[in-house]
């Protein structure tokens, strides 16, 4: 998973770029607490999508079930978020 920072909400989780299951929307999601950002402004308040399926805020898909996934580098490049990538988790 490419991560873009540490979650400012739970202060523990890694923030990854998540691709939703339907329209391929990209969001920033905490792998610890599921806090969600629609933009790279991580100082803005996060959303907390409904548990456990994490419906996508942009379409009818979700962030939980296949084919929802962590974005690969190509998908991050297309989204234009390469500049915020800090590295890759083990």
């Amino acid at each position, binding site marked *: 998973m490419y*991560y873009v920072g*540490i979650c400012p*909400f*739970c*202060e*523990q*989780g*890694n923030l990854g770029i998540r691709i939703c299951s339907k329209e391929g929307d990209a969001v920033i999601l905490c*792998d*610890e*607490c*599921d806090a969600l950002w629609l933009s790279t402004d991580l100082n803005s*308040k996060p959303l*907390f999508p409904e*548990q*456990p399926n994490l419906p996508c805020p942009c379409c009818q898909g979700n962030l*939980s079930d296949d084919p929802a996934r962590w974005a690969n580098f190509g998908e991050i490049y297309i989204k234009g978020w390469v500049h915020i990538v*800090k*590295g890759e*988790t*083990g």
Partner: protein
Amino acid sequence: MNQPNKRLRTKASSLGWTAAIVLFLIIYSVIQSQRNQTNDQSVLNSEESRAQNVLDPLKEASHQSNTAKDEGAQQSDLGQQKEPNVSKSKSYPVASSPVSKKQTPANSNRPPPLNSSQRSTTAKTKPELGQLRDLGGKVWESAAGLKYGPGSREKHRLLHIMRHAEDQPNRPGKHGVFAGEGERKKVLAVIDEAYLKALKGGKKVERKKEGNRIVYTIDMDRRIGFVGGQVGNKQGKPSAYKIRLVLEGTNVITAFPL
């Protein structure tokens, strides 16, 4: 003339005795019935108060009897447990008690024998922190009332929490690791303990609410794990004395030492 008078005196005397005996019998039966009523009332009162006392432990008893069965099921469903808890859970004396063998006669003045629910008050009924019971729908409730259900990339919050049972030295940032040698029951027990402390509040508890989320940071006043991850390992795995709980109501999203 003396003979009829004597007969009359004897007759009057025997009538007097009869009346006295009848009167005595009436008084005796009235007293007896009053005494019975008083006894019945006191038994009723004691039953009522006992029922009140029994209420919570009774809940706990059913809780525990489920727990033994449930934890076994959980082993297969969420089998990440290094040490099974089943035997410990089964040790709860819920259904059988030595008290049940000493029945008292129904007509004696002793209180009536306790029924099975009342017996549970005499048994050790408090569920241990960290024990779980199945609520159905893959949701498990801890002794302190926290719920662990489906969610996270691990597909279940119990599995998600157990990520913090061991270090992930390559994880960016910090990764809180619970003490307890990776034993789920110990991890859940300290989370339960922290939650109960959080509910009490006080100086050692920080509470942050955002939307439907509540984040508690609880100072446990003792070492409850260490800080791992990349940052923790660079710092020599410092001890962790606090727990952070991220909840939605009583649903656990995550919990970890820090």
